């Protein structure tokens, strides 16, 4: 028997424990809400975690893990954790929790079937996840700072324009009088 089919059999219990471990990272007062409110729109955080970990798990069990796809699923969870009260390590530790859950839930079967090597392979897949996650987390944090910078820039853009500090653009353009350039520049600015 393969490890992955064992994990597939135990999917629901593994996901449940994994979900609980993710939630344990939140303050106790918040856990009950994220856990109990079932409406996707009334509890987007809880819903994102539930949906996210299941999809990630499915992806891990797939024959070949697609980094793009799994990255998207990781993103849904990490994007939220990146703006919550977590240090970077805390924000991403939930990925490693899966190792613990798998070992605890499937250890007997793994030993019985001599699947330790498969386990190592599976765990290194989880390590891959963590590497992808670092990138995602950093992107999220960079985005936050970018937004802050953008807001500061947006609020001074017209000032710069008025103070004729837009020479940089005018130099680039073929026709300094063409206001359209400002449009284009502004379009870039809003992106």
């Amino acid at each position, binding site marked *: 028997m393969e490890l992955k089919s064992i994990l597939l059999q135990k999917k629901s219990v593994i996901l449940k424990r994994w979900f609980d471990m993710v939630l344990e990272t939140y303050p106790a007062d918040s*856990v009950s*809400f994220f856990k109990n409110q079932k409406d996707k*729109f009334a509890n987007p*955080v809880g819903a994102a975690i539930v949906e996210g970990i299941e999809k990630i798990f499915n992806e891990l069990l797939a024959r070949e893990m697609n980094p793009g796809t799994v990255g998207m699923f990781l993103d849904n969870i990490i994007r939220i954790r990146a703006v919550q009260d977590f240090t970077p390590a805390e924000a991403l530790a939930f990925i490693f929790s899966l190792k613990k859950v798998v070992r605890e839930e499937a250890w007997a079967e793994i030993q019985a079937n001599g699947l330790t090597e498969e386990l190592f392979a599976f765990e290194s897949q989880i390590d891959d996840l963590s590497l992808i996650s670092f990138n995602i987390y950093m992107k999220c944090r960079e985005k936050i700072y970018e937004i*802050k910078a953008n807001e500061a820039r947006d609020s001074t853009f*017209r000032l710069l324009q008025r103070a004729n500090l837009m020479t940089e653009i005018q130099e680039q353009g073929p026709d300094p009088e063409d206001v359209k350039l400002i449009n284009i520049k502004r379009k870039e600015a809003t992106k």
Partner: protein
Amino acid sequence: MATKLPKPDELSRIDYTPPKKCWMDTPAELKPGMYCWGAKAKNLNVVGFPNARDWSPAEEDWKLPKEWEGTVLEGIHDRLSKYRSFRLFMDVCVRCGACADKCHFYIGTGDPKNMPVLRAELLRSVYRKYFTVPGKLFGGLAGARELTTEVLKEWWYYFFQCTECRRCSVFCPYGIDTAEVTMMGRELLNLLGLNIDWIAGPVANCYKKGNHLGLEPHTIKSSMEFFLDDIDTLTGVKVEPTFNRKGAEILFVTPSVDLFADPGTYTAMGYLMLFHELGLDYTWSTYASEGGNFGVFTSNEMAKRLHYKIYAEAKRLGVKYIIGGECGHMWRLVNQYLDTWHGPADFMEEPVSPITGTKFENAKSTKMVHVIEFTADLIKNGKLKLDPTRNDHLNVTYHDSCNTARGMGLLDEPRYVLKNSCSNFHEMPENTIREQTFCCGSGTGLNASENMELRMRGGIPRANAVKHVHEKYGVNMLTNICAIDRATLKASMDYWVPDVSVAGVHELVGNALIMTGEKERTTDMRGEPLPGKEGDENETV
């Protein structure tokens, strides 16, 4: 590194709070990213707010005035006798919990003190201690507690984590409105100079210079000139608005941020194009150059002081009535406060559309018409030539602003305007729109940048609904009729649903509007090529 590295699950449990204590015994911990900087002395001095000094919430000492407890208790007493809402809402809550999961901040943070009921209890517990018999007699047993510095800091932290969006009040069986409680809470904090600078700055600006951004008259005019150039480039039509013109029929008032920051600027261009096309006899004012009112996020009195300019200017210029631009809290105030503060506006006439002859019956006392109402009436009467296909590159949804939805009921007019201005329109899920709309997450002056984490978390419910329609229908444009929304949803979308842009409704109107004598448009206002005109882009660059 000598220190032992913690194991992952140890790490992840650092924030895990062991069995919880009663909320009253858990002082608020001010977390970075969740609060704004304290108000600077110079800004408080401009409007004469008490205890003006430079201070930092992060520091232990908040430089409170002597005997501040007395000031607060007196303040509570005073407000209890002035506001039935306040007195009633301090008493009638049964803590049924219906409001608990209705708050976007609670949904996004999970912090129990962000449940509307608990936010109000922060103040109620003190009210009970000093103003009710059971509270005086039994203290903690009756849910009462002393007013201490910890309590005060907790108030400050959580009353500046409420955007007064009123969503909870929709679900409360007694109509308890946390906005009222937060307003009172913030008034009390203001008695001690405990405001945030993101609010105090605009208030000072608006008081002295007429608008939140502090744009001086000549700056407003030159700002506008850039729009006129842009419009000229786009359409070949020369628009010539007037400023402070006596004898105009209509005064137009809108939030100043739309004159300054994208994407609100496009909405402002939309107004300019529309009014020009109609040949409307209207004027802008540099004195009443702010529709919004950050004063209401400090105290009722300050709000009244700032909103004074609108009627005063209408009177000075001798206009017949006023049209107000797309703004959220501005319209809560126009609808529910303005006439009471500064009316009767008997120096004006009951508003009648000069184009359609429609009487705006619902504005006959304030003499102030919402631009969306004005435009909806034009469209209904066939007075506008609109080409919705010019917005065919957009797949549009509409976000109801809290204030126009729950403090006014302006729900179907904007949808009518939108559906006539674009071809692709999809609503977000039912429990996230109309009177159940979710706040953008940064209202009531919380749209600073130092509290970005709070904003992003508060924005989750709205963003989640947008994401849903984005994935389901390919929605790429989130429209709204609120200047704060335009500024803050942009950031929120940037983070949560990066493929969705934000626009005011009149931007879409401006794009769709077929103007007399215009040249063939190849792009929209943002310089995006119009559908079917993509090839032309290269020529212009």
